[in-house]
């Protein structure tokens, strides 16, 4: 337990000492989402801005007005709004993959990483991370697909029961299992990422193997830490939405923006905390010890020096006298 707390607090400490990364990722997140929302915003403004009926959504939240907005021809096809948002979400994923090596390097450093060092780490590990992303995608996709398939079969079986509650219970239990297994995979690849960056490992497969080995050996410790941080994320989300509902008056757009964006900013913390945990674990358990023989001091004597300086095989001729 003490070990787990150590991992959690150590990870937190690394994250807390590098808060600027969270801020910049948040800026990236909000910027890309804003770009992705352009089409949606234009469509909504064209319907709402001069209509008194739009007040139904300002002073309260009349669902009918929102549904009618989506049904309006001026709004256009919903996919025209969804597609850019999804594309920019995917871009955020790629940029995260690009910048995480710098974050890991920063977390491992005992000093404030310079901008050059940060971006150097990003550039040096770009292709390694893309390879990691592909391997992780294949494995996580296959496992998630299999687990969701199994969950579907179980749910179908449970649906045959005369106990109505069995179905939601089976679904919930299935989700819980999927969450734990996927978290385990996330830990595996987080450790692999740490190994790639901090060992400057070009052979990604070796880092993947090391990540798997350590995840399996220390699963309880690592999984406990990751689950706790995920619970923190859920608490942040629930608290943020509750505050939004309870404290922000319906017509206060600014209040809603503040609370929602603060929630999203805080929501980044648990994931960076997890990265801090992964780096802490790496430094504590995965860095290979280098065997160095003890150095015995030797007294320096002229003889020793002359021994150390080899006599040239070709004798050096004495200098000729200078002509006057």
């Amino acid at each position, binding site marked *: 337990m003490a070990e787990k707390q150590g991992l959690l607090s150590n990870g937190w400490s690394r994250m807390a000492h590098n808060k600027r990364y969270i801020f910049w990722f948040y800026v990236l*997140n*909000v910027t890309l*989402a804003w770009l*992705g*929302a352009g089409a949606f*915003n234009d469509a*909504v*403004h064209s319907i*709402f*801005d*001069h*209509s*008194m*009926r*739009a*007040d139904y*959504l300002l002073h*309260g939240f*009349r*669902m*009918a007005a*929102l549904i*009618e907005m989506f049904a*309006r021809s001026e709004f256009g096809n919903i996919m025209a709004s969804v597609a850019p*948002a*999804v594309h920019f*979400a995917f871009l*955020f*994923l790629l940029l995260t*993959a690009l910048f995480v090596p710098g974050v890991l390097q920063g977390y491992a450093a005992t000093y404030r990483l310079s901008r050059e060092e940060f971006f150097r780490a990003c550039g040096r590990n770009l292709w390694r991370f893309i390879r990691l992303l592909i391997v992780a*995608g294949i494995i*996580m996709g296959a496992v998630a697909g299999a*687990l969701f398939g*199994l969950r579907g079969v*179980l749910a179908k079986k*449970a*649906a045959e*029961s*005369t*106990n*109505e*509650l*069995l*179905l*939601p219970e089976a679904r919930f239990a*299935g989700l819980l*299992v999927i969450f734990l*297994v996927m978290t385990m995979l*996330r830990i595996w690849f987080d450790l692999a990422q740490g190994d790639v960056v901090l060992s400057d490992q070009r052979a990604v497969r070796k880092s993947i193997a090391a990540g798997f080995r350590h995840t*399996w050996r220390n*699963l309880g*410790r690592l999984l*406990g830490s990751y689950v706790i941080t995920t619970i923190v994320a859920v608490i942040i989300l629930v608290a943020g939405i509750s505050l939004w509902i309870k404290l922000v008056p319906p017509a206060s*757009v600014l209040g*809603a923006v503040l609370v*929602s964006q603060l*929630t*999203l900013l805080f*929501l980044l913390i648990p*994931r960076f905390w997890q990265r801090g945990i992964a780096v802490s674990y790496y430094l504590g358990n995965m860095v290979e010890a280098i065997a160095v023989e003890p150095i015995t001091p030797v007294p320096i004597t002229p003889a020793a020096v002359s021994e150390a300086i080899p006599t040239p095989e070709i004798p050096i001729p004495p200098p000729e006298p200078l002509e006057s």
Partner: protein
Amino acid sequence: MKMRWIIVFLPVVTVVAISLAVKEYAARASAPQTAPDVSAPLAAGVTPLSNGAAIPDTTLAINSSTPMSQRIVHYEIDAHYDATKHTVDASETLTYHNLTGQALDHFPFHLYQNAFQPKATWVREAKVMGSRDTAYEKWEDKEYGSEDIKTFEVVGQGDLTSRLQYIQPDDGNRDDKTVVDVKLLKAIAPGEYVQFKIAFRTVFPETEARSGWKRDFVLGGQWFPKVGVFWHGAWNCHQYHAMTEFFADFGVYDVKLTVPQFEVMGASGIKVSEVSNSDSTKTLTYHGDDIHDFAWTASPRYKVKEDGVYQGQMGPVQMRILMQPAHWSQVERHEKILRESLERFESWYGPYPYKTITLVDPEPDSAAGGMEYPTFITGDSSWFMPEGVRLPELVVEHEFGHQYWYGMVATNEFEDAWLDEGINSYSEVKVLDSILGRNTSMLNIAGINLGEREGQRLSYISAADLDPIAEKAYDYYSGNSYGGITYGKTASVLLTLEGIIGEDTMAKAMHVYFMKYRFTHPDKEDFLKTIEEVSGKNLRWYFNQAIYGTQVMDYKVLRIESFPVNWYEEKKGSAHKNDKNTIYRSYVWLQRKEDFVMPAEVEIKFDNGEAVREHWDGVSRWTKFTYEKRGKVVSAELDPDHKIQIDRNDFNNSYTDEPNPKPARKIENYWMFLSQMVAQALAWWAV
């Protein structure tokens, strides 16, 4: 145990636990299928006739000392339900009183359960038009249903089984067996009785169209051969279609149901007796008066609340509620909405005459929720149902409303579906508005709300221009059109009518219509003429467009404009912005974008605080109002009192000079929040 083994074992344990928990109902010893007893004694109070028929005359199940309907039919059914095969073997004695004024030489019968066969019209239509239950992408045996007549005897004329002939009056589909016709050897004279003795077997499908079985539950609806209705001078006996419901004559029902001992039962009418049999079965006898259908349900797991009594205008009404065990915490919620619905209907439309109302919370995930039968309705709920989600209230109220609009005012659901579903949806809006609030009667959770009238309008505008209201239910373009027009448009049209004739006049018209036509089969003109008579207005201009036509309404504030009258004297840089004495010429343009024409009001506001209301007849495609005032026009709003429910676009009904970006920004923020969340979640798991 090491965590890694826990992780490995978790899926295994989950699989095993769920498999163990799936307790299949133990194989039930089905009741032996004895031969149908077609000579069962008739109910007490029955006068035998010389030709072997009988005139039933009881008032056992209603709070009235005299019959309230003509009681054209009397069904006596002795049925045995096999809970393992989901079949019913029964004998039926139907006594028919010929009050048509003419001799009848043939009788058509509905065999509704034959609809659930791959070549039947019902399945064909469901496959094309959509169904709220099964998509029929591939045929499965459990979807099969049937209703086979084994023997058919007419008292005094002998066995006429060989004279039965399937007919297809609507579409000529020779494979459709939902209507069978029998040609008699001798016509039945006006005023005479005829008695049919029918032995039949019904096989229920897995719940379809609110009938059939699901797991160990069964809803016995439309399960016995039912004679058509002689209406408007001819037999009216349509095939069963994917979008249609039913039509039947009023009468008396005496039904014996033999089921396994463990079943908990509910049925139309009142329970007369319950007898345990020696073969692990029991026989329950039900009786119903002045009803036109009989449905029943059985499940071993119902939890029953039957101590609720509503003191109605004609006497006490027992509220019997059959709940799913996992929904038991919602029983008070169900009883409350049932009681409040009874109160509203009695005070607004007329008395509920029956002695019982049975509310069934059907098997989860079955296609049995939300159905009406006389004195017997099914609700719809789930184990998780927050108070702010009003689904149970909505469904219970709606189905109870059918006790009036279908149950007592028994319109033809094949041809005039809007007269029951539409009028009932209108009543639903009124009742739920008064109980749960105008804007919160469907949803009221976390600051998000939705009112029933808004819901009906949304349903309408999703299918506004395809079909008229006055359309046969089986002639609609699609299921969505049927739902949007029959329910949503009718409700919206009647709510708009309130704005034309006044809410009080409309309420009076509804009351008059109910009292005048209860226990009869009115048609659309009976309803429309009642409204015209009560309101004293000729409303054909409205009915022709709204009921008989497909016209769509979309009024728009096209443009508003103001400028100083002496604009030509205005010098550069000396605008009249703050000059209160400046006189402005203002224009307001209104447009009728679609083809529905009706008068409307418009409210125009000026920046000096003045407001004027104008009347527009809507006849021309557009109109213009002009003003000269010491103030600029700041806004124009069509239908400022929100009386019109049928305008398909509410957003363009108003226009403000200055844009107000706040509502859009609020929605933008929701969209941004969602987008950012999705992006973060994606990155969380993938990188």
